[in-house]
């Protein structure tokens, strides 16, 4: 089972890298066509390229779906091999985070038919997988603090959805900042990017609240204190507050545009800090 999990991981990695490449061809190729047709004054028409680029994009999506399936398989095999949810060390967290980002990406892509988002989200997912190759992938037995199957599974599973949603919001925000005054035709319109960012936070924010609450509940059961300003606890609270600030600025003040996109990027920075902060600061949460 452990070997199967490793094979599936490699397959997911390869599929994801290829998917990113195809998406790049699709999007940058479209950009190239746009530049060519402008500079060529329309006289140089390349009708053959359009369909090829479209095919590249379609296969990009198919490969992403495959990568997602392989990653799912890898996590399932690993869970079977370990006898508990695959959420107990940095290797497993990273796979799970990547899985969440991909899942949410596929959901948003299905909703908005927007391949460009892949340019921002897939590198994040791929980066997480690349990071996973640098940490030990051994299956580690559960230390006493983690021996709570229900909370381990739910707490981390919810975290993955929240972090995945924030990764989408980050991707949309970066594209939003690149897309100045809707002048770049191969990028989605600003209004759409703004909406995607907001929708992603609408998905992620309640989930993040649930993550923190379940974490507090677990801390109360395991350590007898629901809150101890542990670095990970605190960072997750700040992350949540930042997204809370984003939502309030938007709903009450009508903040859209650059400022709220910047908040989304800051929020994702805080998300990553929450995720990896315990590597640098130790604390109660330092497993793996």
């Amino acid at each position, binding site marked *: 089972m452990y070997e199967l999990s490793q094979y599936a991981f490699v397959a997911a990695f390869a599929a994801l890298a290829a998917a990113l490449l195809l998406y790049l061809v699709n999007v940058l190729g479209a950009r190239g066509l746009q530049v060519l047709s402008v500079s060529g004054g329309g006289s140089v028409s390349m009708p053959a390229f359009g369909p090829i680029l479209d095919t590249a994009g379609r296969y990009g999506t198919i490969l992403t779906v495959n990568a997602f399936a392989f990653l799912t398989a890898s996590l399932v095999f690993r869970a079977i091999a370990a006898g508990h949810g695959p959420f107990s060390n940095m290797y497993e967290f990273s796979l799970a985070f990547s899985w969440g980002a991909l899942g949410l990406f596929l959901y948003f892509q299905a909703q908005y038919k927007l391949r460009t988002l892949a340019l921002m989200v897939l590198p994040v997912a791929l980066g997480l997988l690349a990071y996973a190759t640098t940490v030990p992938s051994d299956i*580690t*037995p559960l*230390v*006493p*603090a983690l*021996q*709570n199957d229900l909370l381990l599974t739910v707490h981390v599973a919810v975290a993955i959805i929240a972090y995945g949603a924030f990764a989408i919001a980050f991707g949309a925000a970066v594209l939003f900042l690149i897309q100045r005054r809707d002048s770049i035709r191969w990028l989605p319109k600003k*209004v759409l990017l703004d*909406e995607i960012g*907001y*929708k992603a936070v*609408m*998905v992620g*924010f*309640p989930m993040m*609240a*649930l993550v923190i*609450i379940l974490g*507090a*509940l677990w801390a*109360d*059961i*395991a*350590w*007898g*204190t*629901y809150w101890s*300003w542990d*670095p990970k606890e*605190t*960072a997750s*609270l*700040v992350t949540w*507050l*930042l997204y*809370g*600030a984003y*939502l*309030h*600025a*938007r*709903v*009450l*003040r*009508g903040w*859209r*545009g650059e400022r709220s996109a910047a908040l989304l990027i800051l929020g994702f920075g*805080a998300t990553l800090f929450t995720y990896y*902060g315990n590597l640098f*600061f130790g604390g109660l949460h330092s497993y793996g």
Partner: protein
Amino acid sequence: METPGSFSAADRGNVLPTVASGGAGARGGIWEFEIVGRIWRFFTSVRLALVLILILTAAVLVGTLLDQIPPSVLSDPSAHAQWLERAKTKYGFWTDVLDFSGMFNVFHGLWFRVIIGLLTVNIIVCTLNRWKGIWATVFPPRVRMSDTFFQHARYNATFAAPMTLPVAAERVKRSLRRSRYRVRTEGNDDSVAIYADRNRFSRFGTFLAHLSIVMILAGTVVGGMWGFSDSEFVVAEGATRALGLGTNISVGLEHFTDEYYLEGPPKDFRSEIVIYEGGKEVKRGTTRVNSPVKYKGIRFHQSFFGQAAVMEVKDAAGTELFSAAVPLAWETREGSRPIGSFDLPDQGLTAYVIGPRSGENDPLVPAGEMRVEVYRRDGGALVTADNLSQGTAKQVAELDFTFARESRFTGLRVVKDPGTNIIWVASALMVIGLVMLFYFPHRRLWALCKRRPDGSAEVRLGMTAQRDMSLESEFGRLRQRVASALRGTKGGRTSAQGDDDV
């Protein structure tokens, strides 16, 4: 663009409570109300919340990047000074500045609490300020809107329906219901007005969520006032210790076990404990990480463990003065050796038991031995100090001391926190509120069906803009449903006006 029932006015902070706008005739004079009004306005500012959250973010960053003084050290001036001495090697000149400004004690410091307090007041005031506006969007909705409303609505559409007015109105209602909208109508012979909405309680989610934050803070206050905790309750195997903290409870440890996986990491820590109240055994159980023993709302959590030394003391006549396991749960300041102590009250002495430093050859306390240092209880003068090897009695301070054998102690965290129930209820409200608010957003649509001179009908749809997001796709879906319900019409004129509310 404003419609009756739209909640923008309240959001902008224009709605002051009656006390602030009560003004002239009131007893306190206009000036006082001016002050109250200003303070109120100050706290209605969402910008204030943003600033406070950013300050908190910075504080947290400081609190995680800089070493923090543990609370136990903070309460002891000499330990505090020592901690600062050690910090000087790391932070040098800045140590005093950082200490003075509270940077070594961010989370328990005054200014952190002040910011949290301000944020709480900010949340409460903002929430109260929005109540009226949100209430107005939900109850009671205005069903009939004017023609101008439909002309100016951000999203609007007009259809000509080749059917009688009642049929057209019925079809519009049916298609809206099929989109899971709740429909209300007001009709007369010439026209039928329709108001349709979905998830109308969604916006109350915001009150649940904000209320829950205040409840959580209240929960921490309740816990602080009526709860207690001892995070370092230490008891050695075979011993029983009074809990104190205003209770009549004592705890005995029968046995402590630690297990490890073959690979090395710990597998299980567990303590078999007995709880006595008023000297009578009332409960017995095994406490382990993730499953504490509970008695009368007090929880006993497995927290840490360590080495203990079973000590026996007899006087010259052979009378036993002391015989128990002494937990070596602390560390000596110099040399970092495990240390514990026990009292001999009749002799007016306190004996400190010091174990060998682990993992190396300790010149002061060789492995397998215990060092005993006996001090006077009044004045604290050292009487004598000596090393004991296991099993052999030795005379120290005119008494016979024996280090009988090694043993173990368990460290429990004992907690009573009546505030946690409030916190879990609040947490549930928070999640319910946020899910209502974000997963089931409130949507409203108005329609007006009119009889035309030729007997056919005209149907207009209108949706007002929402500040947080575009309703283009939602309106598009509804428009299509209505259009196909009024089949025979040619699509209708529709328009969605451009972004104008940013």
